[in-house]
């Protein structure tokens, strides 16, 4: 029978409510244990049964994801999903949010977000080879937003640069809805031999349990609980809940862990993120159907006098739990010590299914591992369609008035959502490891894999404005946009990881957004045969003022059979022909201005119905462009997205330092044709002698191809209706596009 530890407070309803447990959940805890919990046990339940760790609201909905459902049912869920890319290699990948910590302590919040996701990767035995991040902020005119933006970017750079993992892409989006609640989603990828994947499984009764890496301190206690409530005026007081990152130790941990895994002596390994030792012990034991006994007094500690509760709940960073074959502890520990890291036996695997925690021998907690890891109560929450959806969807889309296309293009190019993010990605080392083939700023980052012909492409995408307008279709579009970005890079989309950022799920409107969005993602991933292999849910992204737009960030992996066939968005040569490829035109109601950047710029908010999305046509477009890339027909390819065709054309010009002269040979009015944001349009350029091949390939796939003009000259020129509609010097466009964010940030 566990006893209270020294200085444990008395357990009262206030105590469990403060920890985030409902009265009913507390009674379930008593029911499981057959007695009242100790304070340590109560804390363990509270973190493991938080939404952040236990997915108590989201799990029933996440079952819509096929791969997740299968893994959940078979007990095969791991820290990150692994995708087979051929030649015996796999890519481990995952994206995770660190929104609330970044809202109150942007530098450390973002830094530890990177650290946490990297540990999810190398705990699989995979060497981290790339990071991306998807960021959302309020408007840069707000000084607090600039402060958050500056420090989030610096925090990501601080961690990623030191740890030596290139940050090869991502996205940054600005909208007032994120002013009080920025989103910081970090994605990481690792390379692993498929026969060397490590598991988070505490197999083998009698095997030793080691804690390795940093010492344990009082930082981050109840971070997971903090992530499971809305931000409020007192959120600043949660600063101590934010962990501190030490990328130097993480770097050592990566090298030591990968080296130690090579010995074969480690049977299971789990990183410590949310809920620290509690989570890693109960999850590894539950997964193996074993139990585990540890003594917290053996855990290397940063401070004196830590209670068992504090040690079990600490979220100190850069720690791992390793389950090591009995008798081979020293072999493993010596590797960690050589890298200057702690590696200490704190317990062993048992057969009774219990996580038993001792302090100097005295039992202070004894809890069934499965109850903590797998039996978090789940809830079917109410969902109802918010009024705004009906209102905005039924608002007819006005044909927006544009008098001067040249100045409109320049204004769009300097909108922070569209403007160059060079200011961001030049603060990240995107080349270390010398595998980066396509740098940030193109449609997707591309990496070579050493020793084989294969390459990979990666992107993150989500236009949350259209998800806001229609969570189902908008989320489907996010998947298709990510896929298009990969295809534009010459890579075949193969798998998805998602980070689902939503408001308070206990509000039926927010939960409806979540359900609809997941349904859209799941359908799109089925349609494209790109399974969701991992992911993360972040709820409660709300402040008293507002909730964020529903933001399901899609991280997508693509594979190039031959990395030298990669394509970028930049125009390459004077005289190349420019061809527009469209999936659904002209039958689809394209072009539409619903939710477009132009609409928001001129009318102040997104509105209007979204056009449909025909999976077969989209896939035909992808197949056509991939065939063109593999056949080396393309000089460039760029996806039409925010800002429409005008911005797409300008970006290809700016990236290549070359002008273009095109004729807008599209049916329908000029404004939607130039600025509408259709799903499924790609602008390519090709050497003149290959133009007929491009058109023939498109037509063979049933894809519309319109030859619009050619690359060259100092200006971006669009003609239509017998007149010159737009003429902007590339240098001027480049200046508008490149200077917008640095200019906003230098006003700090």
């Amino acid at each position, binding site marked *: 029978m566990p006893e209270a530890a020294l200085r444990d407070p008395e357990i009262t309803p206030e105590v469990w409510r403060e920890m985030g447990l409902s009265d009913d959940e507390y009674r379930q805890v008593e029911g499981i244990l057959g007695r009242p919990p100790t304070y340590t046990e109560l804390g363990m339940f509270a973190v493991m049964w938080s939404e952040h760790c236990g997915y108590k609201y989201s799990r029933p909905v996440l079952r819509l994801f096929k791969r997740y459902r299968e893994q959940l049912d078979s007990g095969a869920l791991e820290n990150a999903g692994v995708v087979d890319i051929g030649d015996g290699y796999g890519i481990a990948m995952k994206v995770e949010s660190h929104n609330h910590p970044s809202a109150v302590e942007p530098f450390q919040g973002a830094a530890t977000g990177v650290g946490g996701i990297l540990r999810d990767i190398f705990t699989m035995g995979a060497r981290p080879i790339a990071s991306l991040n998807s960021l959302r902020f309020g408007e840069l005119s707000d000084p607090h937003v600039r402060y958050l933006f500056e420090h989030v970017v610096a925090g990501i750079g601080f961690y990623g640069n*030191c740890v030596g993992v290139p940050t090869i892409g991502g996205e940054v989006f600005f909208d007032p809805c994120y002013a009080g609640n920025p989103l910081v989603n970090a994605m990481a990828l690792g390379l692993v031999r498929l026969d060397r994947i490590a598991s988070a499984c505490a197999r083998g009764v009698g095997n030793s349990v080691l804690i390795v890496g940093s010492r344990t301190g009082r930082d981050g206690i109840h971070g997971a609980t903090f992530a499971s409530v809305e931000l409020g005026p007192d959120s600043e007081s949660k600063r101590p809940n934010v962990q501190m990152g030490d990328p130097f130790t993480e770097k050592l941990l990566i090298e030591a862990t990968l080296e130690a895994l090579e010995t074969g002596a480690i049977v299971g390994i789990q990183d410590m993120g949310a809920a620290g030792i509690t989570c890693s012990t109960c999850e590894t034991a539950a997964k193996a159907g074993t139990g585990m006994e540890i003594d917290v007094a053996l855990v290397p500690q940063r401070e004196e006098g830590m209670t068992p509760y504090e040690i079990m709940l600490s979220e100190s960073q850069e720690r791992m739990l390793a389950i090591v074959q009995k008798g081979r502890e020293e072999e493993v520990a010596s590797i960690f010590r050589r890298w200057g890291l702690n590696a200490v036996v704190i317990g062993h695997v048992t057969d009774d299914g219990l996580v038993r925690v001792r302090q100097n021998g005295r039992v202070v907690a004894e809890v069934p591992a499965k109850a903590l890891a797998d039996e978090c109560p789940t809830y079917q929450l109410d969902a109802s369609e918010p009024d705004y959806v009906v209102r905005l969807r039924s608002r007819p889309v006005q044909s927006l008035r544009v008098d001067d296309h040249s100045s409109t293009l320049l204004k769009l190019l300097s909108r922070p959502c569209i403007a160059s993010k060079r200011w961001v990605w030049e603060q990240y*080392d995107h080349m270390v490891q010398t595998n980066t083939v396509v740098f940030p700023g193109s449609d997707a980052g591309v990496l070579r894999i050493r020793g084989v012909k294969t390459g990979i492409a990666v992107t993150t995408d989500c236009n949350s404005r259209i998800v806001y307008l229609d969570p189902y279709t908008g989320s489907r579009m996010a998947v298709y946009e990510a896929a298009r970005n990969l295809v534009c890079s010459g890579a075949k989309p193969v798998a998805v990881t998602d980070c689902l950022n939503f408001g308070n799920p206990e509000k039926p409107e927010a939960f409806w957004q979540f359900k609809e969005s997941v349904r859209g993602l799941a359908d799109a991933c089925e349609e494209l045969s790109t399974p969701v292999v991992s992911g993360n849910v972040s709820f409660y992204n709300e402040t008293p003022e507002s909730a964020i737009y529903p933001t399901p960030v899609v991280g997508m992996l693509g594979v190039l059979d031959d990395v030298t066939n990669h394509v970028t968005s930049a125009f390459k040569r004077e005289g190349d022909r420019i061809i527009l490829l469209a999936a659904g035109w002209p039958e689809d109601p394209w072009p539409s201005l619903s939710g477009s950047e132009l609409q928001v710029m001129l009318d102040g908010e997104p509105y209007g119905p979204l056009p449909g999305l025909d999976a077969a046509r989209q896939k035909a477009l992808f197949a056509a462009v991939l065939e063109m890339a593999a056949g080396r027909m393309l000089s460039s390819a760029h996806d039409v997205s925010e800002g429409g065709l005008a911005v797409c054309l300008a970006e290809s010009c700016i990236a290549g330092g070359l002008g273009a002269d095109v004729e807008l040979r599209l049916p329908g009015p000029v404004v939607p044709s130039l600025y509408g944001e259709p799903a499924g349009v790609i602008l390519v350029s090709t050497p003149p002698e290959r133009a007929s091949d491009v058109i023939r390939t498109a037509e063979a796939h049933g894809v519309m191809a319109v030859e619009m003009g050619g690359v060259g000259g100092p200006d971006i020129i669009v003609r239509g209706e017998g007149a010159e509609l737009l003429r902007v010097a590339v240098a001027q466009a480049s200046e508008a596009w490149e200077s917008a964010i640095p200019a906003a940030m230098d006003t700090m």
Partner: protein
Amino acid sequence: MKFAVLRFPGSNCDQDAYFAALNVLRQPVEYVWHESTDLAGADCVIIPGGFSYGDYLRCGAVAALSPVMGAVRKFAASGGLVIGICNGFQILCESGLLPGVLLRNRGLRFICRHVHLRLENADTPFTRSGTVGKVLSIPIAHGEGNYFADESTLRELEDSGRVILRYCGPGGEIEDRYNPNGAARNIAGIVNREGNVAGMMPHPERACEPILGSEDGLVILNSILGGRA
């Protein structure tokens, strides 16, 4: 020619340098751990980039005191070739093997980008496969690459032709607007008085294969091999 690549805890370009030596230059190469004093019989020591010991104190300050740097000092004194790249340059300055220091970038932000460099002296073991005035495109990736030394040191460096690389424009223009970090006189790389120890902030190992977008780093790496361009 045999290379040794030093490994400090926190080095993160060690594997890139190793890869370049082995697979691009096709030369034997060995890692040397920071606690070792045995340079593995190398002809050239590469001190790679990264964050040695986390660089939580001052860049390269702790590494300068490591056992392996004692061996490097002796090796350099006997005429062995030593090249420090990025953090390696910082370590060489902290070790006193090269003059000056590397301050924080004047913009106070980390910068990773391809820059243009003008080759200033083709008469060193690190530049002999190039020609004076040649413009190279090689990336930088650092937060502290702002080279600083007192006036007399700078004058001495200039007078003795020890500045080997300078940040410049695409046509070789040495102007402040092409200076990414505020380095004195646009200095990107220097050699010691004897010419056998070089330090540079740019990363030649990141620009030595066509797939990486530039092969200009080979001018440096091939020079070390003996000038075969």
